[in-house]
């Protein structure tokens, strides 16, 4: 997996850590002096693990059927495509009838829809949201911006190929794809999951160092632990 976004300056001077994230001594209300290190105290740094499939194929197929028919999407819009997701909740398209629901917290979501261009600043949040989701989890790239940069191809601040930073299970091409295309993408994703090929989370865990290197290459002010759930 080669990083194609070589337009970014990669050998930059290091950005200093934000003040509130630096390790320091704090005096508690009862006069005690304690050391705090926000990056270590509030997050876990354990690497993601590769989770094996269920032992029996029948059980795994049954689970995959359930996963496909209960897709919970993280309500997180990154670009213009977020507006294309809204009609899916309305009477005209109504994605709920396919078992697709929106959840407000990454902990309960299975599908992260990167809905359009992803600026470096948003990439940081997308990574954090993705890593907090429980396995197995799926990523869907919406619009040509996530495939090759699209109209943001020579932007100084937008990533071009989403697959370099997060493992993408399904792309929906277009600029922007209409809600019908998005629905078709969901159906295709369901097929992929049912076939047991939606193993993006394990791919992420296996190639963790590569993904992290790619992410750090573009995110210059990396002010979080390497893995933060």
């Amino acid at each position, binding site marked *: 997996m080669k990083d194609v976004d070589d337009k970014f300056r990669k050998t930059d001077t290091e950005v200093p850590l934000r003040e509130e994230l630096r390790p320091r001594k704090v005096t508690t209300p009862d006069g005690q002096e304690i050391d705090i290190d926000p990056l270590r105290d509030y997050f876990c740094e354990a690497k993601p693990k590769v989770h094996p499939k269920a032992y029996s194929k029948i059980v795994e197929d049954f*689970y995959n059927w359930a996963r496909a028919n209960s897709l919970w999407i993280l309500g997180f819009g990154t670009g213009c495509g977020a507006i294309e997701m809204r009609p899916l909740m309305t009477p005209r398209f109504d994605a709920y009838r396919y078992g697709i629901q929106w959840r407000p917290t990454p902990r309960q979501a299975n599908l992260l829809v990167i809905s359009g261009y992803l600026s470096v600043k948003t990439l940081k949040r997308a990574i954090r949201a993705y890593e907090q989701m429980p396995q197995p989890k799926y990523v869907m790239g919406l619009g040509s911006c996530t495939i090759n940069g699209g109209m943001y191809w020579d932007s100084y601040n937008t990533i071009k190929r989403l697959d370099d930073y997060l493992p993408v299970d399904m792309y929906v091409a277009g600029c922007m794809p209409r809600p019908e295309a998005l629905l078709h993408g969901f159906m295709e994703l369901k097929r992929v999951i049912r076939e047991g090929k939606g193993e993006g989370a394990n791919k992420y865990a296996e190639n963790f160092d590569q993904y992290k290197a790619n992410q750090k290459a573009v995110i210059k002010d990396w002010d979080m632990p390497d893995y933060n*759930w």
Partner: protein
Amino acid sequence: MTAFPNFEWVQIAYALLTLFIVINYGMVMTAVVRKIGARVGGRYGIPVWQNYVDLLKNIALRSKISHGVMYYLGPVFRLTGGVGLLMFVPTIYGSEWHQNFSYAGDLILALYFVFFGTLGMALGAGESGHPHSAIGVSRGLAQVTMAELPLALGVYALSLQYGTLDITKIVAAQQGSIFNWTLFTNPLATVAAMVAFVGTMMRSPFDVAMAPQEIPIGPPTEYHSSYLALMQTNRVLFPVAKTVIYMNLFFGGATSWAEFAIKVFCLYMISVVIGVVHPRFRVEQSIRFFLKWGLPLGVLAILTV
């Protein structure tokens, strides 16, 4: 077996059967209610079996993260509240199978179990460390405590009226005619308790604890996979168990599963219908509502009994 003179081992199997039926009923009924909501909005809506698929999916998730012992116990307590509530009240009146473990003082225990889940959830959500959980749970506790007031007063009025704390006897006293229901013999207590009923069903206007779009989604923010599956089970079981209490106390109980299904559905729809036409109360507004309307009604019910 001198301590429990009427106990027989087969009652455990009967009670588990009740639990099984009620959970499945709740699963389908909540989905049907959501489907009705969708149809009113012009949508097709979720399939009626969607709750089962969601539950299975959450159990099938591979990675689970615990934030500590209380985080783990939170959903367990919550489900204990739901199961306990159902286990200690008679579900079907006159049926030997679905009497569960009802006994002479079960009304007091039921009042306790109504509150139990919220307390357990407070411990669990507190330890999950997410600010939205803490905000949601403190709002929920304040609101449930206030809603308890009219409920407790209504229930005391009822036990004064019937001279017993035994739910089976209260149901027995309401048999015969629809006009024997507490709804008609003691309307004040019924209205006071129904204020509490609507207030604790987690629906608008009293959904400030979960508050979708505001503190998405409150106490369960950090809960996922099996933890969430436990809470989902309780989410379908607890409202039905609570409605069973109300049905027994105020609406003549049920003598068959068909009667049970219809009465519980109608009672559940009261909170749904009120929910869809009223916007959300802020927490101080809902507390004020219970103190202003629920509490005087409850006091009045006690005085006039």
